[in-house]
């Protein structure tokens, strides 16, 4: 069910993605994240177009961590912040992170060698494990275009995914 992907080889980090649908305890999960008792990123699947988008955000976060240039408190919040085109951390976490009423969530953990991290997180999620192949069913392209501010001119050239990852990559050096 979970999918594990490798980040850039030199970083020696893997990410594991797990999709849950029909989630009923988002409020509780959010609280646990705030308290720090859950070590992962919980992302709104509606704003995820493709796993590549997550890979780019995670890769950037791990690189920042290694270079000592994290902008947020930890690696997991950094990944959420990186996904967002906004430089406002609070706003970014709110937009891309789990909302109290969300019924589907995408969980991301790093270097889950033996699956224990995912297992322990799964045990506190009240919802159904879904295949990552169904991610597209949750994706809301309209919402994505709105959040990432993709206007019509841009939509006509190149791919939407390219536009998203470009914004993730250049966030610090451009004001959109």
């Amino acid at each position, binding site marked *: 069910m979970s999918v594990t992907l490798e*980040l*850039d080889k030199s970083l020696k980090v893997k990410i594991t993605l797990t999709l849950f649908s029909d989630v009923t305890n988002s409020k509780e999960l959010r609280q646990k994240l705030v308290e720090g008792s859950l070590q992962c990123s919980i992302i709104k699947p509606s704003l995820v177009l493709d796993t590549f988008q997550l890979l780019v955000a995670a890769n950037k976060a791990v690189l920042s961590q290694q270079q000592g240039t994290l902008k947020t408190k930890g690696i997991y919040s950094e990944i959420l912040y990186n996904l967002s085109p906004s430089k406002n951390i609070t706003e970014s976490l709110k937009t891309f992170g789990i909302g109290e009423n969300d019924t589907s969530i995408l969980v991301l953990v790093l270097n889950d060698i033996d699956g224990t991290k995912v297992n322990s997180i799964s045990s506190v999620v009240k919802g159904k494990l879904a295949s990552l192949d169904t991610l597209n069913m949750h994706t809301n392209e309209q919402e994505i275009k709105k959040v990432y501010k993709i206007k019509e001119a841009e939509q006509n050239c*190149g791919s939407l995914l*390219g536009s998203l990852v470009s914004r993730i990559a*250049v966030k610090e*050096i451009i004001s*959109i």
Partner: protein
Amino acid sequence: MDIADNKQLVKQGAEAKIFKGSFLRKPAMFKERFRKTYRHPILDESITKERMKAEARSLVRCRMLGIHTPAVYSIDFSTRVIIMEDVSEDTQTMRMYIDNVQNSNKNDVLKELKPLMERVGQIIATLHKNSIVHGDLTTSNMLVKLGRDRSTPEVIIIDFGLSYVDGSAEDKGVDLYVLERAFLSTHPNTEELFKTLLQSYRRNYGKGSSEVLNKLEEVRMRGRKRTMVG
């Protein structure tokens, strides 16, 4: 990030090496800028960083304006590498494309290449209208997507390494002049084609284009022989 493994060197210019490989399982191009040891190290670092920032900004800004450019995947100042989308599939540099057309079909070269020239003029007009100066316009820095019919050419602009924002009319004039010089010296007898490009530029830019085209003329004059009077 040790750039060299699993990657193929495809181009080495004065500024950077370009490798082809994959990044997070997607085909990608890696542009690694050289350290220039002849420069003072502080100067070298600041120039390299500025160029990388300018390049990345331009790539994304162009995309936002509807100009096709490679997507940016990652920027790392410590290794001086920009990783971007590999757009080379089914493309040819405009230089080769024009050469091929010129060599194959000498009779109506102008007609064949007119839509392409118009598209390029439109693209540069969009850049300039939005205060982006490319800085190194040549037919090697523009790719043409093949397989499309000639009336709707898809053009991809690459290599924004010398680009900057907030260009003056003079800067834009020089931008056009650099392209003109590169164009005419690489492709003989293409004055008419270039005129088409400029006409499209004027049409698409609108009001501000007159000032730029006047500056282009001025820059040309600086280069052109002045007839002695009296």
